[in-house]
């Protein structure tokens, strides 16, 4: 399949794919630290369910690129144990859909051990998996559960969105003293891009502006970042200049830092809402003010001042909850 290109060296121009960038990150980690190893179903001989680890078995041997039986709970739990013992390992679960079988280990052990042991134990484990729908694989292979995991204290959730993210996220994740879940969007693996030679690391804590713009801010993560960038290009044609913000590689959770942004930040950022929440919020404002909203309202509603101007003046109308 064309989706499974053989591993190859970076061409000099820095062009690569998300898949290859991830592989480079893995290779670098394996080469530079003896404690690092990769473990999961078919990471070795098969080359990884989506081909990310193709060639690494040959390079690093079966001990460090370790195929496991189909036993998600046991090998994720074993990963936690190995991390407790001081290894720095990466566990791959083929897709987030199968992660459910290991959820007890992730929530009850990985996320809680440090706290319950008063800091005696730490679980510096990286768990990688594919997320997202859009490949016509039906309900059991299309979940996006990042939001769930982001709500578990003690875990860090990362969703690399670009080739630069993919290339550098692993070293940051491995340096983290806590469990890190890496969600790789299935539709991104073959996405090509050019590595920015100036970028040598990613900041896990802060959002990044991926496109400058003045009229409207689009906040996106994971597989939506390329889509947002595309949309912004289209919008540019109509005279609207959109800013695209890639959320912190970490999914936005309370405490994420937006101070790097324009001080006139959008409501969406300020309230740390994802796009669906934001729409619900805007609609609720509208219902409350008794107004019909049109698409024209959205750019204005994107900021607090816009909301106030459009809606608050009319807020004396009786408020009704949305029904049904």
């Amino acid at each position, binding site marked *: 399949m064309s989706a499974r290109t053989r591993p190859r060296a970076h061409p000099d121009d820095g062009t690569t794919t998300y898949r290859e960038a991830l592989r480079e990150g893995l290779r670098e980690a394996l080469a530079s630290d003896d404690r690092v*190893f990769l473990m999961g179903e078919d990471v070795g001989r098969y080359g990884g369910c989506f081909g990310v680890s193709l060639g690494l078995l040959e390079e690093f041997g079966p*001990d460090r690129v370790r195929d*496991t*039986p189909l*036993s998600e*709970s*046991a*090998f*994720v*739990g*074993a*990963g*936690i*144990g*190995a*991390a*407790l*013992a*001081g*290894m720095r390992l990466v566990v791959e679960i083929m897709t987030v859909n199968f992660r459910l079988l290991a959820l*007890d*280990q992730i929530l*009850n*052990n990985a996320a809680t*051990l*440090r*706290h*319950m*042991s*008063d*800091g*005696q*134990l*730490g679980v*510096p484990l990286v768990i990688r998996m594919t997320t997202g729908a859009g490949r016509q694989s039906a309900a059991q292979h299309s979940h996006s559960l990042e939001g769930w995991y982001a709500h578990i*204290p*003690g875990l*860090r959730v990362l969703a690399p969105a670009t080739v630069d993210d993919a290339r550098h996220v692993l070293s940051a994740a491995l340096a*983290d*003293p*806590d469990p890190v879940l890496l969600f790789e969007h299935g539709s991104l693996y073959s996405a090509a891009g050019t590595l920015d030679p100036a970028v040598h690391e990613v900041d896990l804590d802060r959002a990044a502006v991926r496109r400058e713009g003045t009229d409207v801010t689009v906040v996106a993560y994971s597989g939506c970042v390329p889509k947002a960038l595309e949309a912004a290009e289209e919008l540019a044609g109509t005279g609207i200049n959109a800013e695209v913000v890639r959320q912190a590689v970490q999914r936005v959770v309370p405490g994420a830092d937006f101070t790097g942004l324009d001080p006139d930040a959008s409501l969406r950022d300020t309230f740390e809402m994802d796009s669906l929440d934001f729409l619900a919020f805007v609609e609720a404002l509208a219902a409350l003010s008794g107004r019909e909203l049109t698409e024209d309202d959205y750019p204005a509603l994107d900021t607090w001042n816009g909301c106030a101007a459009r809606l608050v003046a009319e807020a004396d109308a009786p408020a009704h909850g949305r029904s049904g």
Partner: protein
Amino acid sequence: MATAHGGTTAGTSQTKRPRRARGPATPSRTPAAAHDRDLLRQMLFIRRFEERCVELYSAAAIRGFVHLYIGEEAVAVGVHQALDEADAVVSTYREHGHALARGVPPEAVMAEMCGKTTGYSHGRGGSMHLFDAGRRFYGGNAIVGGGLPLAAGLALADRMRGESRVTCCFFGDGAFAEGEFHETANLAALWGLPVPFVCENNPYAMGTALAREHAQTDLAMRAASYGMAAWAVDGMDVHAVEKAARGAVESTRAGSGPHFLEMRTYRFRAHSTYDPDGYRPKDEVEEWKRHDPVTGLADGMRAAGFLDTDAQEALDHEVMEAIDRAVRAAEQAPEELAEDLLLHVTGRHEEAAPS
């Protein structure tokens, strides 16, 4: 290795002999006698410690869930004879006995039970979550079967680094029904991991008897189907346990992969402090009590001339003193401050745990 005593650090049972034998080698002063006395002291310590826990629970000084090990002391104490300081231990929510046998100081255990900050988990773990990283005691686990994969991982790290340590993993007959046991058994056998599996078959999982839990109740035979050495042991006889554990641990350490010991034992008390214990026939309980591991060993020692009334009294006294000290210390220790409750949720501004 470690001992259930009043001391604060782990030591081998040899260095912990209470009095140096200097006189003529009467039966009560032989190495065998000293070893038996040590076993007895440890088992007695666990027994009395937990009896005290019951009192403290009634007085609401201990809260949450408490699962007592009384009746099963021979397993923890016998198995620990075969373990080194460098080995690791993974336990369950019924882990006071394992922790004390491992040498975790009783002051720390009692403080943790009482939710005091001098507990090794700052009072935040309680009865089901005793941890002692220094002694490689990787804790209780309140999820049945939840510790099994951790043990495989700890052992995998040792194997990859070429260390000759083992990771001893305790779990119950009920846990044997969980998928996690089967996945872990296969993984450990497949990769030849140094894990002595110690299944405490006390033949109930809460109120469910073994035969209502398992289609085939010969657990050792079933474990053997994973291709590992497995056998059943009289878990009420500390000598039998020690012997079996030494065999399994030595063979595991030498590289022959995981071993499985089915310890046939019994809990004399209810499952937990919530349990009215209405599901076991009274005469079954009485029958098992006739095999009490503590009185059984003491009787044997008396018959061998290893124990007389004086020695017994001295032992009782020593044990009660140490427990009193632990309780007093726990009583005086402070509770966690509310503002500390979010400490150690992440380690971002700390060092990661040492290996």
